[in-house]
C-alpha cells in the first residue's frame, strides 16, 4: 500500500522489548473495585444501583448521563460497598464520585445480557451503534471518547475508510501489540462491524513497522476478511495521532478545527475494535482492558488484563511490585501520559499503561536557557514554532501564543523530548490551552448573559408596548362611550 510522508516527529527509544514478548495475563480479582462514574469524555454516568445491592457480572451500575457519555457495568459479581468520592487517576488525585464493588468471588454473569446480533455485517448500522453505546465502549487508545458517538459520524458524512490504529507509537506500551498478536481475528471482526456501522467500504489497519509479528499475524488474519488491508507505517512518533496516521494513509491533512471524518476517515483503536466484537457477537459490555505495566522500577513488567476499577497498586503488586523507588508513575505512555500522584487510583477504560519510571529513564534535568537551536521547530509534527510560543507564554501573553497556533498543538511532547535545554515546552502549552479554554468559557458565559439580558429587555419592552396599546384601546373605547352617551 502506498504511504504518504508525515512531517516532523521524533524517534524515541521504544523500550518495548521488556513486555512485548510476554503474553497477556489476567489479573486475579482484587478485594475491591473502584469504578469512577467519569471514565470517559463527556457527561458522567448516573448510578442505577444503591449501596448494599448485590450485583452480577455485566449488570449495569450506572447509566449514560447524556448523549456524549458511557454507562458503567459490574466487572464481576459482588456487593456495592459504597458510592463515594475516591481519588481519580488524574495528576490532581482529586476525589470523584466512584462506585465501590466488593467482589464475591463467584464471578457470576447476569442473565440480563442482550442476545448477540445475528449477522452484524448485514444488520442495521443503528443497531450496532446502539449496542456499542449500551456496552459502554470508549476509545481504548487512551482518549476515552464514547465510541458510539464516533460511529455516528457516518450518518452525516460519507465515510470511505475505517482506519484501525495499531500504531502504538508511545514507548513502553505493548498492550495493543499483544492484543493484535493474540486476538487478531477478534480485532478484525470488530473492525468490520464498525465499518458496517459507519458505512465505510474499506478497513485499513495501520501498524508501526517496529511490530513485525503483529503485522504478520494481522496480515494473515486479514486474508480471510474482505475489504481489510493491513499496512506497516513508519515508526515515527506521533504516528498514532489520528490526524497524522490519516495523513500517512490517505495523504491528506485534516483541516484545522475539522475531523478526519470530514476527509472520509474515522479512526478507532485496535482494542476498541475487539471490545465491539465482544459487545456485538456475545452481548458483553466492556468490563476489562489490557494494561501494559512497565518501566524500570517494575519488577516483572508485563501486559495485564485487568478488570476496570482494579487499583493501580493491585496491578503493580501482581507484577512483583516496585524493585526501586520510581521517579514518576505514569498513566499511559511516557510521551503523552499523565503523572499519577499515587498508586491508589483505579484502572479506568482509558488506562493503556501504568509505568513506574526510574530517574535514569525520565532523564529529567533542570532547564537551561533556550539556545534557539530550532530543533523543536524542525520536529514539530504540527508545523508550529514551539520556541516562540513558549517565549510568549512565559511572559503570560497567551493570546499572542494563540495567534501563532498554540491551539493547534496536540501536546505530543516531541519538542520537550528533544529540547537540549530541557525546557518543559508542553507544560507551557498545556497551561496556555487551559487558560484559553477558561477565556473561551468566560466569553461564552458573557454572551449567554447578554442574550438573556437582551431577551429580558425586549420582553419588558413588549409588555410595555402591549400595555400602552391596551391603554390606547381603552381610551378610544371610553371616548366612544362618552361620545355616544353625550349624543344620547
Amino acid at each position, binding site marked *: 500500500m502506498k504511504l504518504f510522508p508525515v512531517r516532523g516527529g521524533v524517534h524515541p527509544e521504544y523500550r518495548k522489548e521488556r513486555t512485548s514478548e510476554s503474553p497477556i495475563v489476567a489479573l486475579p480479582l482484587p478485594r475491591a473495585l473502584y469504578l469512577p462514574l467519569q471514565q470517559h469524555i463527556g457527561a458522567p454516568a448516573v448510578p442505577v444501583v444503591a449501596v448494599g445491592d448485590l450485583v452480577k457480572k455485566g449488570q449495569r451500575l450506572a447509566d449514560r448521563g447524556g448523549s456524549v457519555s458511557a454507562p458503567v457495568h459490574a466487572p464481576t459479581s459482588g456487593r456495592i460497598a459504597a458510592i463515594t468520592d475516591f481519588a481519580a487517576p488524574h495528576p490532581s488525585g482529586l476525589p470523584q464520585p466512584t462506585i465501590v464493588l466488593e467482589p464475591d468471588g463467584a464471578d457470576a454473569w447476569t442473565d440480563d445480557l442482550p442476545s448477540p446480533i445475528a449477522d452484524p455485517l448485514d444488520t442495521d448500522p443503528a443497531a450496532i451503534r446502539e449496542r456499542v453505546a449500551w456496552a459502554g465502549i470508549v476509545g481504548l487508545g487512551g482518549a476515552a471518547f464514547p465510541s458510539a458517538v464516533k460511529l455516528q459520524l457516518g450518518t452525516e458524512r460519507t465515510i470511505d475508510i475505517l482506519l484501525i490504529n495499531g500504531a502504538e507509537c508511545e514507548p513502553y506500551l505493548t498492550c495493543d501489540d499483544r492484543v493484535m498478536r493474540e486476538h487478531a481475528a477478534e480485532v478484525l471482526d470488530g473492525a468490520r462491524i464498525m465499518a458496517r456501522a459507519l458505512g465505510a467500504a474499506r478497513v485499513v489497519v495501520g501498524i508501526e513497522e517496529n511490530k513485525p509479528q503483529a503485522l504478520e499475524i494481522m496480515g494473515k488474519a486479514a486474508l480471510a476478511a474482505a475489504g481489510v488491508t493491513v499496512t506497516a507505517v513508519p515508526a515515527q512518533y506521533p504516528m498514532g495521532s489520528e490526524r497524522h496516521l490519516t495523513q500517512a494513509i490517505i495523504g491528506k*491533512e485534516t483541516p484545522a478545527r475539522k475531523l478526519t471524518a470530514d476527509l472520509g476517515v474515522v479512526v478507532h483503536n485496535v482494542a476498541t475494535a475487539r471490545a465491539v466484537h465482544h459487545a456485538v457477537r456475545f452481548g458483553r459490555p466492556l468490563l476489562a482492558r489490557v494494561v501494559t505495566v512497565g518501566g524500570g522500577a517494575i519488577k516483572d513488567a508485563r501486559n495485564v488484563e485487568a478488570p476496570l476499577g482494579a487499583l493501580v497498586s493491585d496491578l503493580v503488586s501482581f507484577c512483583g511490585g516496585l524493585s526501586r523507588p520510581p521517579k*514518576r508513575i505514569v498513566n499511559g505512555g511516557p510521551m503523552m501520559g499523565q503523572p499519577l*500522584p499515587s498508586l491508589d487510583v483505579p484502572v479506568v477504560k482509558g488506562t493503556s499503561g501504568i509505568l513506574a*519510571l526510574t530517574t535514569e529513564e525520565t532523564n529529567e534535568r533542570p532547564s537551561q536557557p533556550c*539556545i534557539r*537551536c530550532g530543533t523543536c521547530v*524542525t520536529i514539530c509534527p504540527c508545523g508550529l514554532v514551539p520556541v516562540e510560543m513558549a517565549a510568549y507564554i512565559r511572559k503570560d501573553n497567551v493570546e499572542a501564543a494563540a495567534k501563532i497556533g498554540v491551539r493547534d498543538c496536540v501536546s505530543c511532547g516531541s519538542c520537550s523530548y528533544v*529540547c537540549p535545554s*530541557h525546557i518543559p515546552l508542553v507544560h507551557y502549552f498545556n497551561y496556555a490551552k487551559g487558560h484559553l479554554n477558561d477565556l473561551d468559557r468566560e466569553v461564552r458565559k458573557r454572551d449567554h448573559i447578554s442574550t438573556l439580558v437582551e431577551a429580558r429587555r425586549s420582553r419588558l419592552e413588549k409588555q410595555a408596548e402591549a400595555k400602552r396599546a391596551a391603554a390606547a384601546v381603552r381610551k378610544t373605547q371610553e371616548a366612544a362611550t362618552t361620545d355616544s352617551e353625550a349624543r344620547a
Partner: protein
Amino acid sequence: MTTAFTDKSGPFTHAPTSVQSTMATVLVALLPATLFNIWLFGWPALFLFAVTIGSCLLLEAACLSLANKPLQPAITDGSVVLTGWLLAMSLPPWAPWWVACIAAIFAVVLAKHVFGGLGQNVFNPAMVGRVAVLVSFPVQMTAFVPPHPLFSLRAPGLIDSLRITFGGGTLDSMTAATPLGHIKTELSRGIPVGTSIQQVPDLLDMVLGFHGGSFGETSALLILAGGAYLLWKRIISWHVPVAMIGTLFVLGTLFHAVSPDRFTSGLFHVISGATFLGAFFIATDYVTSPVSKQGQLVYGIGCGLLTWVIRTFAGYPEGVAFAVLLMNALTPIIDQHVRPRVFGRTRKGDPLPIKGDK
C-alpha cells in the same frame, strides 16, 4: 507519596541531548582546523588561543556573579568556550594579547551579557568582538603573517613567541596580506584581478591552508571537514551553509563572467577568507540565526549576498563578519515572517479547504 510526582506534565522520557553535548560537538568539529593552524602559525597562535578563551571564561564568570546568577552550569555548558574559540580563530594568529582581551570584552560582556546572557543575544558574540577590534585596531588586525610552521626553521622560538604575543611592538616586516586583501589592494592601485590573482597562493595551498590569514580560517579543507561532522551529527543542517556558499559562488561566478578584471571568481570567493568558517560555524550559530529551516535559507542567502557585496565594493577585503552581524539584526524579522505552515492550515493560517467545500 508526595506531589513531587506530579509537578510537571510529560513527556517523562528525554532524548540524550543537552546544551553541553551540543557545544562539545561543535568544539570537536573545530579541533582539526585549530590544531593545524596552531602548527602552522606556531607558539604565538597557541598563546593567543589560550588568552582569548581564558579571558572569555573570566569575563563570563565576572558577568554572572555581577548579575547574581549561579556560575553553574553557565560556565561549564561550553557556550563561552565556543565563543572564545571562534573569536580566537577570527583574529590574526600573531595578534598581541590585549587585542584578544578587548575583543573578549566586546564579545562576552557587551554582545552577550548586556543582552541577558546565553540565548538572549541578538548578535553573534565572537563576531561582535572581532569587528570591534577590527575597526578599532586596524593595524594589529590586518597584520597577517605567512605560515611559520612549528619546529620549522622559520618558526619563532618559545621566548620570541612570548614576546610576539605578550611583548607588544614586535610587529615587523614579517606581515603579508591575505589573498583577499592582496587582490583588494591591487585593484585599488588599478591592477586587474587577472594579474593580481597570479600572486596569491595557488588553489591547492588555498584549500589546504598554506597561506596567511586569520588564525582559524586558512584551511578550507579542515573547516569543511568540521562542518561535515556537524552535519553528520545533525548539530547543523545544510540550509545556512548551502544557501550562503551557494549565493556567494553564484554571484562571484556571474560577475566574474561579465568582468573578469574587476571581479574575482566564484570559486576564489568560496575557498578564500572566512567563507567556510563563517558558513559552517559562525552563521549557523543557533542563538543569532532563524529557528525555521525556511528562515535559515533566507538568512543564508542574505549572508552570502552581503559577504560578496562587502568584499567587492566596501573598504574591507573580508566581509563575512559584517555580513553575519547584519543578518543577525534581521533574524527576529525573518523569524516573524518566515514560519513553517501549520498542520491543517494554509500559509495564511486559515483552515485548509475541504474538497467540494467553498
